[in-house]
């Protein structure tokens, strides 16, 4: 479904991606993990057309994406739930969801407003509220719900667990699992490597703009270096989160 080949990208001369290759097949949930500044968001933004690539290829269902405008990529059903949710905070919750439908173009919806509200009841309860007044977890649900309204064929998620309480993280990850089981293809970017590797089927590890590891999620999770650098750190970080 998505095939990225030797993609490079840079910010005013400073290279952020050095020839990244990656594939996502229909129905898969693929995790992309890596430390701060590894280039995860840059990769997603290249796919979405927000950051231009320098060389390499991005094929979505066989169609080349480089050079296309972000709006046209979104309308192909390639939707990104960006880092930090990026909800339209001054619009109402309802309006945010309605705007999600814009990406439909002339494709037919796969998720109705009612279905999204059923998945995230809080979005129904607060539909007339200013989206910016939602809590972090609620905003993340809104960002995902808004993506679903656009009938995604492939959903790109950038750190959906960022800044959320553990209980909310559980909730978000279980929704992602359910969505994937229902047939939605997902590319999940996470710093919370442990959790991401638990729910994904395959994984890539990105380091300083390069893929240094890839394979089935359980194999990646068992890799010594991955354990030391990503899972080990996270175990420490998680223990710091616990109340003393």
């Amino acid at each position: 479904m998505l095939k990225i080949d030797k993609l490079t990208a840079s910010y005013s001369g400073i290279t952020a991606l050095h020839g990244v290759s990656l594939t996502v097949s229909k129905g898969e949930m693929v995790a992309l993990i890596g430390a701060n500044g590894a280039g995860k968001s840059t990769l997603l933004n290249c796919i979405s057309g927000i950051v231009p690539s320098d060389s390499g290829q991005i094929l979505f269902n066989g169609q080349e994406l480089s050079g296309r405008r972000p709006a046209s990529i979104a309308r192909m059903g390639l939707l990104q739930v960006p880092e930090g949710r990026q909800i339209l905070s001054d619009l109402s919750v309802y309006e945010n969801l309605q705007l999600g439908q814009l990406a439909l173009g002339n494709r037919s919806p796969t998720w109705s407003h009612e279905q999204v509200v059923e998945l995230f009841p809080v979005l129904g309860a607060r539909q007339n509220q200013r989206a910016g007044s939602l809590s972090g977890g609620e905003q993340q649900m809104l960002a995902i719900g808004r993506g679903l309204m656009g009938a995604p064929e492939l959903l790109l998620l950038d750190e959906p667990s960022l800044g959320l309480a553990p209980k909310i993280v559980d909730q978000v990850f279980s929704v992602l699992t359910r969505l994937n089981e229902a047939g939605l293809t997902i590319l999940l970017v996470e710093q919370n490597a442990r959790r991401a590797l638990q729910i994904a089927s395959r994984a890539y590890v990105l380091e300083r703009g390069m893929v240094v590891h890839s394979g089935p999620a359980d194999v990646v999770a068992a890799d010594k270096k991955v354990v030391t650098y990503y899972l080990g750190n996270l175990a420490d970080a998680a223990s710091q989160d616990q109340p003393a």
Partner: protein
Amino acid sequence: MLAQQLFNGLVLGAVYALFALGFNLVFGVHKIMNLAHGAIFMVGAFVGLYSVTLGLPLWAAFLIAMVFTGLLSVMIDFVAFRPLRKTGDAEFAMLIASIGVEMILVNLALRASDARTLRFPFGIVPVEPFFLFGMRITPLQFVIAAVAVLCVTLLAFYLYRTSFGRQVRAVSSNERAAMLLGVEPRMIYLQTFFISGLLAGLAGVLIGLAFNSINFSMGEPYLLRGFVVLILGGLGSLRGAVVAGLALGIIQTLSVAYFPTGLTDIIVYSLLFAVLLVRPNGLFGDAVSDARVARR
């Protein structure tokens, strides 16, 4: 007598509001301070006048002037702002670019008009006033009031009740997120600049008719007034632009009527500072633009 002055002030204020609405729309949605707005207003007055001189009926002159200034405003965005936008953080550069555009337009008008003050032919609008609640109302005043109400209503409907308007507010709130949702920002700039220019041109023809005097430098005082309205109403606030525009019109008319001439500007700006002391962000400014805010 006071009622009459208040009404006259409201009519003048309605034009200020139309002028400031366009100015504030572009600022509120795109954070672009377009200092060429006064020049666009002036061009509108000229185009309206030339159309009438060519023998077209007044309504057609209005239409032509508005479409012309709408397109002019879009063109200004293409030539002056769009290239700068690509470079990222360019708010200041755009401000300077807009001054450049202002100078070009004003100097072109200076050449074209030979620096003369031009007038509409006599009798283009009926001057016979009618009387309502003891107030003397000219047909032109009536038209101005009606047009202002119509424009504000249409603009509010467009922003809050249509899908286009929702996209405009989405871009205002977060342009990048809007792009990821499938909003095409180019289309939004096209719409906001067109509407902004159209409102400026409309205000230009109305003022040209009201004072029956059109010259290349007529935009300047209105740009200054536009600033006062912006600051008074709150940057980016469309409600603020309407209320402050009307208030400014009334204050100005009253001070002309009841105070010695020459005091008007002193009164206007003193009041502005007084308001800012109490409400530093203006009457409706909470640093959030109305163009974004959801209607409940």
